[in-house]
């Protein structure tokens, strides 16, 4: 087997430009690696990938992403390549259109290798709620890869693909990126079009790039960001997100919310983050510990907002126009059997909670209160950003843990997102960056939170840390 997929994007690009390799070589290597690794990180492989790679052979290599293999989370619709959301409900769903992000990466002549495994409808933090079985963590197959973008993280970490797209509602790009030791960004809400992303919680969902390093993450964000007439929450901006990479970080003001360093967080994780903070001070950054009020209510807040929105978004799955259909004769039975058989346990539980908090008087008690709390948290973050350029903390409370650990704990998947949810509630951008390993050799992630649409500043700091630490993230290397 060849080893082109271990190379950096710019090196692969040089080889393609010099005609030393062809896109088909990358596709063959991707498929060979996926077969060999047996991570169950793909639900559907793109059978046309070889054909698409061949078709690129006579075209000029006109951009960095040309001919590059990419994996797509299976809740982003692709025409002619089924989109299941890892659910029985959509087991045979074949979208009739491409999501906007798919149109954009196709315009760059990227090659979709397949659709990645995930928690069902993006609901979960371990990959274990998938109808298609568990995705294995490539760093330790007995452990969860995190979720819900489980397969996207695993496929990038194992170098089966160069890049991947995930989606993040409460931490679903950042958390698995942390658990698998890769770079994952949740962009500012509105930075990337959601058109063609199967909705979970519409006021939180964002598609985000996942990569082996910071620069490649920014290159992929450049390709997918921007205003889309089909998603009017998307925002016009023509920034080059790579532009601050390599720039001096001296003088940057960094806030560390105390919430992110509490004793709930594993001590090894906290110590690793502190090492990074010391490093940043040496590089001339100002680092202060700060209080941001009410972050501790982010989880119940998320449960009301995200599950309320999910219960309404998932009301569309009635078996009529698409999706699984039960064979019941009576209308009411047709609906209830379709939904009860089509959805898995976690999804049903979340629909129930969402329906409950929005029903009757509860809408006022819970939902309205939640909207006020959400406004308050946004204001509290805004105050912090008046004084600080960036906020830092860990991505996760701990490292990747073994399968089946939390089967009976319905709250666990929310608690896994303790440090990622506050950012989502505010719609801010945040990046997960590997900054080291614990004693068991499992990756620890730093989370860099930026002000609205300041992804370029996040990349600036992340890249500075990355080049200081010079971690060897390749699986199987000596560290």
């Amino acid at each position, binding site marked *: 087997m060849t080893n082109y997929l271990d190379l950096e994007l710019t090196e692969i690009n040089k080889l393609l430009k010099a005609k030393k390799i062809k896109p088909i070589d990358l596709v063959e290597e991707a498929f060979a690696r996926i077969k060999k690794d047996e991570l169950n990180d793909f639900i559907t492989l793109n059978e046309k990938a070889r054909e698409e790679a061949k078709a690129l052979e006579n075209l000029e290599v006109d951009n960095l992403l040309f001919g590059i293999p990419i994996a797509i989370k299976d809740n982003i619709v692709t025409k002619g390549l089924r989109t299941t959301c890892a659910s029985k409900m959509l087991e*045979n*769903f*074949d979208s*009739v*259109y491409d999501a906007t992000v798919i149109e954009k990466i196709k315009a760059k002549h990227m090659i979709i290798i397949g659709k990645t495994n995930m928690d069902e409808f993006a609901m979960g933090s371990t990959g274990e709620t998938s109808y298609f079985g568990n995705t294995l963590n490539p760093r330790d197959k007995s452990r969860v890869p995190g979720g819900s973008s489980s397969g996207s993280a695993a496929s990038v970490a194992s170098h089966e693909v160069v890049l991947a797209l995930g989606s993040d509602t409460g931490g679903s790009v950042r958390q698995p990126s942390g658990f698998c030791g890769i770079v994952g960004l949740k962009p500012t*809400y*509105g930075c990337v079009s959601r058109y063609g992303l199967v909705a979970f919680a519409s*006021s939180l969902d964002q598609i985000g790039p996942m990569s082996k390093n910071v620069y490649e993450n920014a290159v992929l964000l450049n390709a997918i960001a921007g205003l889309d*007439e089909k998603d*009017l*929450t998307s*925002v016009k901006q023509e920034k080059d997100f790579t532009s601050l990479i390599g720039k001096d970080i001296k003088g940057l003001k960094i806030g560390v919310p105390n919430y992110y360093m509490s004793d709930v967080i594993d001590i090894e994780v906290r110590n690793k983050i502190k090492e990074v903070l010391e490093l940043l001070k040496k590089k001339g950054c100002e680092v202060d510990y700060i209080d941001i009020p009410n972050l501790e*209510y982010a*989880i*119940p*807040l998320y*449960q*009301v907002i995200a599950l309320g929105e999910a219960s309404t978004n998932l*009301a569309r799955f009635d*078996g*009529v*126009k*698409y*999706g699984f*259909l039960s064979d*019941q*004769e*009576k*209308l009411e039975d*047709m609906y*209830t*059997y379709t*939904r*009860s058989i089509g*959805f898995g346990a976690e999804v049903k*539980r979340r*629909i*129930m*909670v*969402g*329906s*409950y*908090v929005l*029903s009757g008087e509860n809408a006022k*008690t*819970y939902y*309205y*209160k*939640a*909207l*006020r*709390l*959400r*406004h*308050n948290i*946004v204001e509290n973050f805004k105050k912090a950003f008046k004084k600080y350029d960036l906020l830092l903390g860990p991505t996760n409370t701990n490292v990747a843990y073994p399968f089946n650990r939390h089967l009976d704990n*319905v*709250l666990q998947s*929310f608690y896994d997102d303790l440090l990622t949810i506050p950012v989502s509630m*505010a719609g801010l951008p945040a990046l997960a960056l590997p900054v080291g390993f614990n004693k068991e050799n499992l990756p620890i992630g730093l989370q860099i939170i930026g002000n609205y649409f300041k992804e370029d500043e996040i990349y600036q700091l992340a890249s500075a840390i990355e080049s200081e630490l010079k971690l060897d993230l390749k699986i199987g290397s000596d560290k």
Partner: protein
Amino acid sequence: MENLDREKVLHVASLAKLRIEEDEVEKYVKELKDLMDEVNRIQEVEIEDEEILISPSENRNVYKDDTVGSMLTREEILKNANKKYGSYIAVTRALND
């Protein structure tokens, strides 16, 4: 908080068009109680201002020209439907049932 009991759970299931088997009811009651105990924490927070936030992005009016864009064909619309009748999607009888 009102009591989350068996009746309430079955009522919510009917609103959500979900079917809960008899042997699952108790499990749902327990799980929803666990979740609602957590959700109820938001009642503790005291917030002074009354403003609410529905979407984190700036909401703006967008005017579009009334032009013909891309559209789906009949075949495409029918493609993912389970039951078809000629060029229609067939559904279970909803009236006079």
